[in-house]
């Protein structure tokens, strides 16, 4: 059972490391998908917005992680 639990944790961990990064990514994809489906946003524009959004989310996540690990940041 321990192995199964570890495998399940690892499986989830494959996709979710930084919870905020995963949450923002899913939100971004959901909002763009809804805009394409219901608001008539062209698919190509959706694709470009997706790329730009992913870059922004990644930038925020790495900067936040760097700040947390930085020696002069006061621990929360």
């Amino acid at each position: 059972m321990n192995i199964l639990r570890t495998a399940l944790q690892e499986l989830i961990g494959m996709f979710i490391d930084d919870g905020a990064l995963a949450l923002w990514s899913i939100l971004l994809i959901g909002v763009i998908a809804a805009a394409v489906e219901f608001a008539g946003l062209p698919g190509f524009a959706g694709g470009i917005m997706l790329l730009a959004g992913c870059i922004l989310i990644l930038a925020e996540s790495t900067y936040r992680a760097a700040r947390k690990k930085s020696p002069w940041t006061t621990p929360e």
Partner: protein
Amino acid sequence: MTSFTTIVPTMTAAFLGSFVEVVEAFTIILAVGISRSWRPAFIGTGLALLVLAALIVILGPLLGMIPIELLQFVIGTLLILFGMRWLRKAVLRASGFIALHDEAEAFAKETDQLKRQAAERRADFIAGTAAFKAVLLEGIEVVFIVIAVGAGRGMLGYATLGAAIACLLVLIVGLVVHKPLSQVPENTLKFVVGLLLTAFGVFWTGEGLGADWPGADLSLIAILAVLAIFSVVAVRMLRGYHSANIKAVA
């Protein structure tokens, strides 16, 4: 439609992604084999491969039942999550905020742990379990990478071939050198894999949304280039931030 511009990134992503995972699994198998004995190492590995084969046999036919646009969207979304996780870690590693992955260190840690457990009655079982876990967990990632980069365009065959070559290569090199493959530039490979998987994720999700990418498959290379430029800039900026912090603290 399969074209050279899709086959090459698909095989490359499957090969590199599988290569780093297999190197990690190989380190544990080697640690079990050398510090305990080869019997539990092989039994653990064999059992894990059987579980992985069962997973493929069960999941494989299901993929064919899902409409291609939905498949691209779902796999693309998972790839974005998976790829961005790799890329985030790679950027933080390259800029010095998290330690570089070191196979020699992982080998020493696993060997040390197995030696401490050697006196236990179930030492063989523990060693076999370690090999089983390593192969299963790294193998699940390999299976996901192969499915994710291959299923979106019906190129599972090419992706599987890329992964199989990676497994074979690690096995041959491992048999020859008989020690952890610490000379492999694993951190650089992980950076490239993170870029490739994220690019595939954006591309497939876009296709699933109905994006008519200009230049069709060539867009994948453009997305990859944009992500690579961002990552290089991010690493440079974070390195500057890192050294400024160290100077300020010193």
